[in-house]
């Protein structure tokens, strides 16, 4: 599978990673090499095979409905570059 520059630009946008136009070509080449290599999976017969959704063959455990966490807003925002009155803040968003 070969990826063109436009596809790489689209993926970069979806992944929110700024990629300068000048880098798109090389990145497209690298990603294409990998995507071509993984094509060999097409050789495997997976007819009727359930995809693996979890490694662990167990039931999902459930916890009781009790309040056991939270109550430390200062800790929640302590690592933030920009926090005001225990809010996080980001550049103004227009919805």
């Amino acid at each position, binding site marked *: 599978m070969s990826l063109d520059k436009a596809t790489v630009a689209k993926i970069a946008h*979806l992944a*929110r990673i700024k990629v300068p136009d000048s880098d798109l070509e090389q990145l497209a080449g690298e990603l294409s090499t990998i995507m071509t290599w993984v094509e060999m999976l097409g050789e495997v017969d997976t007819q009727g095979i359930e995809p693996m*959704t*979890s490694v*662990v063959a*167990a*039931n*999902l*455990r*459930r*916890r*009781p*409905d*009790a*309040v*056991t*966490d*939270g*109550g430390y*807003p200062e800790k*929640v*925002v302590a690592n933030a570059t*920009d926090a*005001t*009155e*225990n*809010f*996080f*803040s*980001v*550049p*103004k*968003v*227009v*919805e």
Partner: protein
Amino acid sequence: MAKTMAYRIAGETGEWEVVIGLEVHAQVVSNAKLFSGAATAFGAAPNSQVSFVDAGFPGMLPVINEVCVEQAVRTGLGLKAQINLRSVFDRKNYFYADLPSGYQISQFQQPIVGHGTIVLDLADGSTREVGITRLHLEMDAGKSLHDQNPTKTYIDLNRSGVALMEIVSEPDMRTPEEAAAYLRKLRTILRYLGTCDGNMEEGSMRCDINVSVRKPGAEYGTRTETKNVNSIRYVQQAIEYEAQRQVALIEDGGVVVQETRLWDPNKGETRSMRSKEDAHDYRYFPDPDLLPLDLDAAWVEEIKRSLPELPDEKKARFMADYKLPVYDAGVLVAERSRADFYEEVARGRDPKMAANFVIGDLLGALNKTGADIDSSPISAAALGGLIDLIADNTISGRIAKEVFADMLETGKPAAQIVEEKGLRQVTDTGAIDQAIAAVMAANADKVAEFRSGKDKLFGFFVGQVMKATQGKANPALVNEILAAKLKG
């Protein structure tokens, strides 16, 4: 099933039909969040109900809340829907300021609840079925505050991770009224079940509206999804606006784009939502931090057995057992507490009279003050006491209205008011005889007219006698004795 009047948008090229589907996000009633132990209460200080899981910190992992699972199953059963014994949690990936981990844990291909139905109760007393496509569990995002700072958006993650049930309807609705009826009915059911408080103002029930238009009988048109609609009235307005917009657009030679739009309640219009440009590529995949959710069939059965009587069944029972008309039954079952209140009033009493007092008098009065039946100044027992006084002829129906008004104001029991004000009905035939005699004496000419065939005057005499007794005379006795006396 009655056919309601068709709702049509009149365009230049003819009439258009509106096709509506609703996605309701209902906040699950639980103490803690879906995947963390932080609290869910409304209105807490910023980021004070946030665990590091909710804030998407490195290395944090989700563990599911058993009550949230139970609530989803209960809701599914209440919607007469299929319960999927295996469901899977997926990650819905998108970047947004109030989505800390960059993905929302939701259910995509294998939701916990499948097909179900809701019966709408329409204004004309008719009903209509709307299909439920699915119900799935997911976590809520945080809250963005755009109005606190001129250049910044503030983020509060208190809501992040709160359990939501997304309930998706089939595109079965054709009028704004049906959409409103759907929301009211869904809210009623959720409240009966105790799985969501249905409070739209606080955001615990939110609605996204899918609207498309088509010429009657044609294929479905392209739909738009309008978000952020937080009242039933706005839902109706948004549908009307969006349908009109689409018709105008198409008739103008344009095409409807499948997009996410935002309802602006101030302007009363919808607009395209810039922040949702990646909406068509969420890159769902099963969340590797969680395992598939397997439910035990016996456990589901147990929940089913514990379900309360739901509004449709209750309405049918009220009509059958209490012989109530469909309207009365519908009003009474719209809220579980209202229905319970009514049943307590009606127990051992005339059910129709009980319904009249609850609906006509009590609900009317509560409506004026905005109170709900749980905070009614007149208890069910007290209202029953009033009805008992009518039943044993202590007071007349007319006096009862007066007593009711007094009860509302003072909170005193009916019997006490009747005693204090001397409102006890006169059933002493001697006193009534006397009053009648006095009225006939004072109106001898009218007596003569009556006796010469002017039957209509009977009402006049009754009125005069009641007036003379300040309304306390037993009307049945007055009628009986008066009829005999007038015959002469």
